[in-house]
């Protein structure tokens, strides 16, 4: 008997007892939906926890400081750096050559004077009271009513944001290599008197960033202003600052300020890069990469021990939730076995007739296994679809709650392997449940079955 014929036979037999087939499939569907939803929730929870630890960056990321390593801190996740040491281009090249390194992303940082929201959008609560900036060459008017203050602007290659500890909270990242667009952090929102939920009120506004430079021995300062547009709000741990953009603008500001060293500004920064983010190909290689970075001469930190510990606990939770789903599936599979055993009893004579007209034992077995597989496949498909709906429903509920608490929501996405695994799992478990009834049917003595 061909597989196609066995499937056709199985379909006929299932339709013969539609009530029993539907009830059996419902059991499988419920189990598959439970399995899908639990595994998806566990997976999302795991991603969320790890995302919190890595601040949205890669799990195997290493933060390299512009400082020499302190030998006494060796092996710690977050060591105190040693003496300052410029991160040079040659050092970056050496890091890229370390085995297991997949990305080396330099982080730039520059000090800036900030005049918030020179052009508040319609309806914004940012006011428009002008105030002059005193004692500086090139002073500007302040239209926001927020005091002028100093902060940092952080620059990084945002095209590789997936490897950086940066999460977009609202709006967009700056356009590629833009020098006129920035993202701001929630600290900026607080600074201008807005809460975390008011991100949309700053998006689209302008901000004046002034890079300063000491121009003579009397420490007179010259300011060079850039008007930039705020295009998004981010949570970022790549550097220390309220502004984030591509490296171009930051490098320019850095060079402007660093030129002050020639006029006696010993505090002017020497290193273009304040840090480097190195990504290893896997978590288990992080230690070796960090040792190699120390050999090159730089201090590094990575939450590898925390991640390993947390992952261990998360795996236990995932295992428990998956086990609950699998147990439900196994119970449903017992239903399949029971239904098929009943079918073998009912169709005893028909099985005998099939064998009498030439069916081999394996033909009979195949028919019953295909019946079990069909029940599992259809039940798995329906159940997995239901599980996805449940997962998204719970996800929406959780996100609404998180948002109402002023927290970042969870990305609601389901990896393709979870539904595929649930469908395949339901089918395999069902086929396994059908083995005993199928063997019993195949081994029926032909004559006795015919005369039953």
């Amino acid at each position, binding site marked *: 008997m061909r597989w196609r014929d066995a499937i056709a036979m199985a379909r*006929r037999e299932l339709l*013969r007892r539609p009530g029993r087939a539907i009830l059996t499939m419902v059991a499988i569907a419920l189990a598959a939906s439970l399995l899908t939803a639990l595994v998806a929730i566990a997976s999302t929870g795991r991603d969320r926890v790890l995302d919190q630890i890595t601040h949205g960056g890669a799990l195997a990321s290493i933060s390299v400081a512009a400082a020499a390593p302190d030998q006494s801190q060796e092996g710690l996740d977050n060591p105190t750096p040693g003496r300052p040491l410029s991160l040079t281009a040659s050092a970056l090249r050496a890091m890229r050559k370390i085995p297991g390194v997949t990305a080396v992303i330099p982080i730039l940082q520059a000090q800036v004077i900030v005049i918030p929201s020179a052009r508040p959008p319609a309806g914004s609560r940012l006011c428009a009271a002008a105030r002059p900036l005193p004692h500086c060459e090139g002073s500007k008017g302040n239209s926001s009513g927020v005091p002028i203050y100093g902060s940092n602007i952080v620059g990084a290659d945002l095209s590789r944001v997936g490897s950086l500890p940066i999460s977009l909270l609202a709006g967009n990242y700056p356009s590629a290599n833009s020098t006129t667009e920035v993202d701001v952090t929630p600290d900026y929102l607080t600074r201008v008197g807005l809460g975390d939920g008011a991100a949309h009120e700053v998006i689209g506004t302008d901000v004046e960033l002034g890079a300063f430079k000491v121009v003579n021995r009397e420490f007179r300062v010259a300011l060079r202003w850039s008007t930039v547009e705020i295009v998004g709000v981010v949570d970022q741990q790549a550097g220390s600052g309220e502004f984030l953009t591509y490296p171009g603008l930051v490098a320019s500001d850095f060079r402007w300020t660093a030129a002050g060293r020639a006029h006696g500004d010993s505090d002017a920064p020497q290193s273009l890069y304040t840090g480097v983010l190195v990504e290893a190909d896997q978590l288990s290689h992080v230690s070796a990469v960090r040792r190699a970075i120390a050999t090159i001469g730089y201090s590094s930190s990575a939450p590898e021990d925390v991640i390993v510990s947390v992952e261990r606990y998360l795996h236990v939770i995932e295992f428990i939730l998956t086990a609950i789903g699998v147990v439900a599936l196994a119970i449903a599979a017992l239903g399949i076995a029971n239904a098929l055993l009943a079918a073998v009893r009912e169709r005893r004579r028909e099985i005998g007739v099939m064998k009498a*007209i030439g069916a081999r034992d394996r033909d009979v077995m195949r028919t019953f296994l295909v019946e079990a597989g069909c029940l599992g496949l259809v039940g798995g498909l329906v159940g997995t679809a239901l599980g996805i709906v449940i997962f998204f429903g719970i996800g929406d509920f959780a996100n609404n709650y998180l948002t109402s608490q002023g927290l970042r929501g969870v990305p609601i996405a389901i990896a393709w392997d979870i539904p595929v695994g649930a469908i395949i799992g339901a089918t395999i478990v069902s086929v396994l449940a059908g083995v005993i009834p199928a063997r019993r049917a195949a081994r029926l003595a032909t*004559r006795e079955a015919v005369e039953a």
Partner: protein
Amino acid sequence: MNETAVDVSGLSHRYIRRERTLSVLRDVNLLMEKGSYVSLVGSSGSGKSTLLSLLGGLERPQSGRLVVAGANLASLNGDELAHFRRTVIGFVFQHFGLLEALTARENVELALMLNGIGRSARTRRATSLLGDVGLGDRTSHRPHELSGGERQRVAIARAIANEPLLILADEPTGNLDGEAAVSVAELLSSIRRERDCTLLVVTHNPAIAAHAETHLTLVEGHLAPVGSTDDEELGG
């Protein structure tokens, strides 16, 4: 010279039930030529159905020689016996043996499907066979939608689907009323003539026995002739 379809000699068979040995067949000898039509009678428990199941490869012979269409059934394994049943034997049961989930045509197709015939070819052949047995307009009906006589006709169409050498019919009219029984008896007889197959029918129905050339009886496991329409001795 006629070919031999069935060659049985010294065939004995017994069952062990509740630690008691029950001899069902004792030293049975039977020679059937290809194209012959034999009726077999006997009281209940005389071994008729056992003989049919042994000839049809449903059971393995315990002792004696049993050759059907040149195949020594004692030497065949499970798959070979299944192949033998598919290609050499056509069964007709008293209870019809139709699968309730399948239509009349699909029941006939089942035998062809097990023999590896492709879908379109077996559909054509099943439809043609049902037309041959007078059910051309009932192909899409399920067994419960057919009368007893019609069901048995479907079973006969299925039995001849793979053009078997030997048709074994166990009380084919046992569940039919008089008119339907006569009709089925005539159908079996005409099929035997037209298709040149060998027919062994277990029956108590005089109408069906009347079509047979040879009449055998089983008495307590022993096979004996009760008469032959052309005086040809077939059983011992």
